[in-house]
């Protein structure tokens, strides 16, 4: 004889019967966006924790990649995007290589960072790199000590990049301007002053 499983607490029984139950502050669209930008089926995560166990950032911080995966599935957009730990992933891809569900937790994090940036949430150093590239084409530009060293090596003082051929810079700026990246970087950095 089949026994009907249920809970004595009627409210709880109701909630748990509804398999589509979400916390009030959850946004199911968030999961879709993460999966779409990150190109990974985050909802397949079965929370084994292999990712966190492989993560070089986990033992030295409160950053837990498994937790981010779960929160993405639960649509906890606000919690994910405003958590400073989001920026502690070194993108080493160890989790991605070892995930038994063949997911790419690293790319889920990259997707969440992209979504955070759309809301102006981004650490300053990321924006400073944008400014440097806009100016010189390089995230790590040349300097005088290095020019002297290059000369001693028999290399030209400026490498064969945008440094030696600044006529390529307008094209680079056009690409960045297309996405309004420099403008946004300047604005967000100024607002944070």
């Amino acid at each position: 004889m089949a026994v009907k499983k249920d809970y004595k607490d009627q409210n709880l029984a109701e909630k748990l019967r509804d398999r589509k139950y979400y916390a009030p502050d959850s946004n199911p669209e968030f999961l879709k966006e993460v999966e779409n930008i990150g190109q990974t089926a985050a909802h397949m995560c079965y929370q084994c924790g292999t990712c966190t166990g492989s993560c070089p950032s986990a033992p030295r911080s409160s950053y837990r990649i498994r937790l981010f995966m779960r929160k993405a599935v639960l649509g906890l957009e606000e919690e994910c995007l405003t958590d400073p730990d989001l920026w502690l992933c070194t993108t080493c891809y160890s989790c991605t290589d070892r995930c038994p569900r063949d997911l790419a937790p690293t790319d889920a994090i990259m997707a969440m960072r992209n979504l955070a940036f759309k809301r102006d949430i981004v650490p300053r150093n990321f924006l400073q790199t944008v400014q440097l590239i806009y100016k010189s084409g390089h995230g790590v530009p040349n300097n005088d000590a290095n020019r002297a060293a290059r000369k001693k090596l028999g290399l030209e003082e400026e490498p064969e990049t945008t440094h030696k051929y600044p006529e390529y810079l307008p094209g680079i700026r056009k690409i960045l301007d297309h996405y309004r990246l420099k403008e946004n970087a300047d604005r967000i950095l100024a607002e944070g002053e």
Partner: protein
Amino acid sequence: MSGNNHQYAFFLGCIAPNRYPGIEAAAIRTSKNVGIDLLPLKGASCCPAPGAFGSIDLNVWYAMAARNVVLAEQMGMDIALVCNGCYKSIWEVNHKLKHNDELRDGVNEVLKEIDMEFKGTVDVWHLAELYYDPEIVGVKKIADSITRPLTGAKIAVHYGCHLMKPGKERHFGDTENPMWIEELVAALGAEPVQYRNKMQCCGAGGGVRGYDLAHALDITNEKMINMQDVGVDAVTEVCPFCQLQFDRGQIEIKEKFGAEYGIPVLHYNELLGLAQGMSPDELALDLHAIDVEPFLKKIL
């Protein structure tokens, strides 16, 4: 016989030409000695930094990297490079655009504004994989090019992350305990040594070095401990950004945590240069933060 050499457009990136120019000089000379000509890729930019740009907006990262690839397409030449971070941007974006029409169309829409088009006609290679590939160079030819074997030097290999990982999207096989760079090191007459957690990240990537230096250095410190434990004379890598993190990082670790290792950090091309008889001056080894002298004493 330069006429029979393999030719590649040399994508420099940022840190090699602008912080460790010895890597650039060594790459050109050592490659020539094993039959590879590296030609200037004029007007290339930052790859751009996959951690910083990818985190902000993947679409900008695709477009900016694609522009660099198109410069090589215009030369009609495959790209060779010396940095894992550059490999992530240039190899991966090239690969993605070749296999994803939607993505390629989106990128070309933007490139049209600067009269460029991604066609998907070239491939991208890390110099280290070309050295290992018997059809291009191969370990034997590397060994044959040596005039000053690095006998007696114990060397730890740091593979870094973005050359081989994620393994399922790359073509390097095992990413848990690869040994091919050790073979390249052994070809120089040195002794590659194994150490705990060899495949761990240097700590710098993903924008973490700029975001939380102490956190990045703590990861680096763990690697330094593991290398020191097995008594290495130097660590070698194939990524100038990892090199910066280990080299300057050891100074920063000393300042922040008080720990001192003094382990010289050499890009594989710098090692190869030494083994092919280049002098420390010709490699600008004086630019290294950690004194390379103890290592040189051992081998010269």
